[in-house]
């Protein structure tokens, strides 16, 4: 337990439920159960009642407005000689919208693949898993990607091109570690990309992990000029050693970060991340080639005097 944690615990240990609050609460709850209240409602009850009344009034007003609009808008009879130009215009509009939609589908990026080894870079993909952008996040990545025309390729072809490029091969040594993070709002697309990433990793001589991450985490990582995997590892390391900064982590490879984290967690080698990020659609997918005990030990360090607990199905 560090100084901050100790100070917070001391502070909140001193904050107990005020004397008399239990009785006040039980009295309040018993009043809620009574069919009629003799005393005027408390500020809390007044707020609850007024909110409910407000919601009812709002719903009633909405209903009245709908009826009013229905009465006001007269039905216009379309004249015969206006029919065909209107149909033609509608057809043009539909085609324009459709064409624009197809164009947008081609260019809109719906997924981002963050790759961290020590080159850190990100591929933007459209909904057809075609690479639409390549973003180098550090100098090593810029050198690797300089002469690789990945834009326009399918995700799988882009990965194949990377593996076979001379500039990338040195980073795929056996003692290296590659982290692939998938950020995608579409669950099915995310699953396909995760599968493709895992297949890709299985062909490499180095160790690696792939997982789904959130857009929020990606934004935070980019704020630190890092890929998602490297950012997560940096956060983990900084939890153990508060003297380490993001700037320090920039110069470390994924392997070095993993090894240093493992030193604190007491396990050997890398690959401690279980990759349990959640996609924005709400499904949990944890996929990794290496799942060590480091995470569980980390959790145990933070339990302190509060002991173990079972957590399942928490919700209102």
């Amino acid at each position, binding site marked *: 337990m560090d100084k901050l944690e100790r100070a917070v615990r001391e502070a*909140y240990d001193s904050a107990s439920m005020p004397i008399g609050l239990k009785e006040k609460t039980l009295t309040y709850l018993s009043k809620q159960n009574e069919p009629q209240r003799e005393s005027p409602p408390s500020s809390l009850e007044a707020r609850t009642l007024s909110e409910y009344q407000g919601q009812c009034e709002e719903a009633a007003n909405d209903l009245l407005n709908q009826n009013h609009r229905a009465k006001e808008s007269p039905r216009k009879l379309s004249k015969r000689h206006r029919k065909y130009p209107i149909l033609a215009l509608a057809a043009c509009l539909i085609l324009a919208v459709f064409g624009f939609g197809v164009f947008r589908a081609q260019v809109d990026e719906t997924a981002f693949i963050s790759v961290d080894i020590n080159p850190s870079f990100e591929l933007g993909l459209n909904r057809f898993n075609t690479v639409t952008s390549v973003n180098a996040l550090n100098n090593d990545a810029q050198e690797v990607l300089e002469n690789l025309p990945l834009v326009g390729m399918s995700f799988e072809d882009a990965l194949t091109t990377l593996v076979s490029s001379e500039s990338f091969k040195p980073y795929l040594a056996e003692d290296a570690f590659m982290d692939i993070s998938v950020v995608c709002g579409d669950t099915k697309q995310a699953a396909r990309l995760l599968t493709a990433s895992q297949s890709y990793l299985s062909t490499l001589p180095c160790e690696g992990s792939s997982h789904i991450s959130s857009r929020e985490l990606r934004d935070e990582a980019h704020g630190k000029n890092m890929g998602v995997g490297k950012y997560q590892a940096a956060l*983990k390391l900084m939890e153990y050693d508060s003297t380490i900064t993001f700037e320090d982590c920039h110069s470390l490879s994924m392997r070095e970060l993993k090894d240093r984290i493992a030193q604190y967690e007491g396990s050997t080698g890398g690959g401690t991340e279980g990759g349990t990020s959640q996609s924005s659609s709400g499904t949990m997918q944890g996929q990794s080639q290496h799942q060590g005990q480091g995470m569980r030990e980390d959790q145990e360090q933070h*339990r302190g005097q509060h002991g173990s607990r079972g957590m399942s199905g*928490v919700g209102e």
Partner: protein
Amino acid sequence: MRQDKDIEDAIDQYGDAVWRACLLYFRSDPEAEDAFQETFLKFALNNKPFNDDEHMKAWLIRVATNTCKDMLKATEKKNMSINDAPEALICSREDLQEQPGSSLYEIIDAMRELGDPPKTALYLALYEGYTAPEISEMLDTPVNTIYSWISRGKQQLREALSWTN
């Protein structure tokens, strides 16, 4: 509605935990008391059984934080200014400094002043001792985001308390 005995037992067992969660959001006792009572009203009206005591505690803390957030939003919507509120609702910093253990209140104040996120995740991690996966389930947020919030929250809290080393 739950039995009176169950409600009373819950207040005895977890009243302090709920109260502390309310202090994360409200400085004044009346506001925190309102949130406290509202939380246990929701508990009383919720007939679903809990898996175990820890499940109940986690549920209560989560409901308390959500209740506090809803109350704060409602206050913002009504454009309540601090000058409009009765003096009794405002607990001034000077009052706090005269109270015993004011340095402890400084920490509670600093926690309250943090944004949310990361304040709730930070509190659950630092004080209640929940792990990031447990907090992830409570707050329905990806676990890696929770790690990020906890790390950011610690940094912000240190800065707020001027603990830069």
